[in-house]
């Protein structure tokens, strides 16, 4: 363990990553294999093996450098920060040769020419151009060229997805009217699907290049040379043809001449806070709406569950107990996926906000039910007995004697859960909700100012959750009149 840690530190301190690669005889390339076809993805026939045109390209590059290639899995929209952290040697995963990327990191010469493609449902009116999509719900991959182009075009009802598979699934589920994505992905995923169609010609062509840390000049030079050789000897063409992504536009690879890139400038979002804070606050509003509604749902559903358990008999009791155990024993992420992507298959189509409230609310309901149960059980038996002895029914006894006392005991854990949910709600970005953490992520991605934005975001979370905790203290004190 310790050896591993110092080993990594040693590599980052080496003069150039190229030396480190050659010393260890292995290059580590970062990519996202989740929904990654045809770039890099698990072989459907042999899932433990990775395939894809970038996978084979990595092997070819490694061969040129005289080493072996090893894939380091990393979420796509976090590839650049992971590179900067030193998680791998370079990014080889559909990274666009944009001015922004060239300012932040070192970019190699291109190995592939991509273009954007609009995909729609086959039976829908065809949308051949971005202008046709004004006001329509359109899905794009987070931090992709498609996101930037569609944002610049404006007027679209944009939904940001963490992966391409999800956006196409929502297109089929009619949550979207179109998806804009890189052509190779469209060719691989959408073209074979009989319900989807590539609408209009590809547009906005650009290059994919390899991303390295800015200081790794020697590595960059070695990669440039290797790519050039692989392009010239048609290895790249052979690999691309194998995956059905070669077309005439790829000829531009040979004519590529790197143009000068302006030196990168650091953006301080803290200094420019009037520009960034409102964006974050808009995300915070979604977070607040989401957590308040979800918590309201959780508090009420939890009460129903605990009453079923305390007052009910037989099947009702089992149902409540089973619900709590199943929900507690499965990840929230999976529950959200099931609600958002699974329910449409049985005809229930919720929008992302409703699905997020439902998912968070029903998940926390289980934990609220347990909080209530602990509260109720900590009220001495004598309270229930005294009530029954007076002729009150069990429900009346709960309603007038046990629950009011349990309430005070339950406030601290329920507040804790509320604050926890407040922060956990960031998980709903997986179903395209853009809340505070997602806004942070998107801004950090474009400015690379993780610290400044992180501080602002943390401050907003704190400013919102601390009053909740103060309110709970106040409420708890107010309800304590009985023990003076």
């Amino acid at each position, binding site marked *: 363990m310790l050896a591993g840690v110092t080993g990594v530190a040693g590599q980052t301190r080496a003069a150039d990553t190229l030396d480190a690669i050659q010393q260890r005889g292995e290059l580590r390339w970062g990519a996202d294999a989740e929904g990654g076809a045809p770039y890099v993805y698990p072989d459907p026939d042999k899932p433990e093996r990775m395939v894809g045109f970038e996978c084979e390209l990595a092997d070819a590059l490694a061969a040129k450098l005289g080493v072996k290639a090893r894939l380091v899995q990393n979420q796509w929209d976090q590839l650049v920060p992971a590179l900067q952290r030193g998680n791998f040697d370079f990014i080889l995963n559909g990274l666009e040769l944009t001015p922004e990327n060239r300012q932040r990191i070192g970019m190699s010469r291109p190995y592939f020419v991509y273009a954007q493609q609009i995909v729609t449902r086959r039976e829908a009116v065809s949308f051949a151009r971005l202008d046709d999509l004004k006001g329509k719900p359109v899905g794009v991959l987070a931090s992709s060229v498609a996101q930037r182009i569609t944002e610049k075009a404006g007027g679209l009802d944009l939904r940001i997805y963490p992966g391409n598979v999800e956006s196409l699934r929502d297109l089929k589920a009619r949550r979207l009217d179109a998806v804009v994505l890189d052509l190779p992905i469209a060719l691989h995923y959408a073209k074979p699907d009989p319900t989807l169609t590539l609408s209009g010609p590809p547009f906005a062509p650009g290059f994919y290049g390899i991303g390295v840390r800015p200081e790794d000049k020697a590595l960059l030079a070695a990669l440039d040379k290797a790519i050039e050789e692989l392009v010239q000897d048609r290895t790249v063409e052979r690999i691309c043809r194998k995956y059905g992504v070669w077309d005439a536009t790829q000829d531009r690879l040979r004519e590529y001449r790197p143009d000068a890139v302006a030196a990168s400038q650091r953006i301080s979002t803290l200094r420019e806070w009037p520009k960034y804070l409102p964006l974050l606050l808009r995300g915070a509003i979604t977070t607040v709406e989401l957590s308040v509604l979800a918590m309201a749902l959780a508090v009420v559903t939890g009460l129903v569950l605990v009453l079923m358990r305390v007052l009910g008999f037989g099947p009702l009791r089992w149902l409540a107990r089973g619900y709590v155990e199943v929900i507690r024993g499965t990840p929230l992420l999976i529950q959200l996926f099931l609600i958002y992507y699974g329910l449409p298959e049985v005809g229930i189509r919720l929008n992302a906000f409703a699905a997020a409230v439902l998912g968070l609310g029903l998940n926390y309901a289980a934990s609220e039910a347990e909080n209530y149960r602990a509260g109720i059980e900590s009220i*001495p038996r*004598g*309270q229930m*007995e*005294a*009530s*029954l*002895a*007076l*002729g*009150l*029914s069990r429900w*009346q006894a709960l309603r*007038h*004697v046990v629950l*009011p*006392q349990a309430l*005070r005991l339950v406030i601290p854990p329920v507040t804790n859960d509320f604050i926890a949910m407040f922060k956990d709600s960031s998980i709903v970005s997986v179903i395209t909700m853009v809340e505070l953490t997602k806004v942070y992520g998107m801004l950090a991605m474009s400015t690379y100012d993780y610290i400044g934005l992180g501080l602002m975001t943390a401050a907003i979370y704190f400013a919102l959750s601390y009053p909740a905790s103060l309110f709970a203290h106040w409420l708890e004190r107010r*309800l304590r*009149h*009985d*023990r*003076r």
Partner: protein
Amino acid sequence: MIVVESLVKSYNQTRVLHGVDHAQSRGETVVLIGPSGCGKSTFLRCLNQLEVADAGRITIGGITVEGGRPPGTKEERELQRRLRMCAGMVFQSFNLFPHLTVVQNIALAPAQVKGVSPRDSEALARELLAKVGLEDKAAAYPGQLSGGQQQRVAIARALAMKPEVMLFDEPTSALDPELRDEVLRVLRRLTEEGMTMIVVTHEMQFARDMADRVVFFDSGRVAEAGPPEQIFEHPQLERTREFLSKVAKR
């Protein structure tokens, strides 16, 4: 007023009551004595259905409940509730509702169970508080009262349902000696007013003075019963004598 026939109760295979019979007429005060674990508290809890007897029959104020199983149907539950309303219960640990004021404690059941209006139930509560000598504590919370005061409120709370019978389960055992008298005074007054009462207690002086009949419980059975003079002065059984001498030494 009260007729109990062959009451049997077990907890996890251990038999606590071995077929107890008991009959009591209106206005009679019966004191149950006996060593701890002899089943006297269980007997009392069976009477107002906090425990459901395994077998036997309980009749209080004309309402009969059979032992055997918890009430299943709505009618059975209603019968159980009516029986409970006939029998007021006072617990060793008071069991006042700490989140309600003294008046609210007393007024809750009449208002919720009998539908007495808020004004009438509060008036009733104040009247009963006066009776137990605590009219000035109406607005206090239980936590602000001494143990003796709490128990007197608990008695008022039980009386508010106008029960036919009052059951006292060691009402002074949780109290410091100097606080016991104020509770016993209330019990004496109830006896004098002709309330039908069953009192489980270790207060032998109270038994001597106020009981119409003393019942000595031993090992889940009524071992010996009779007027206080007979039980205290001429106990028939060796067990009774032994118990009384132990209690006297305390």
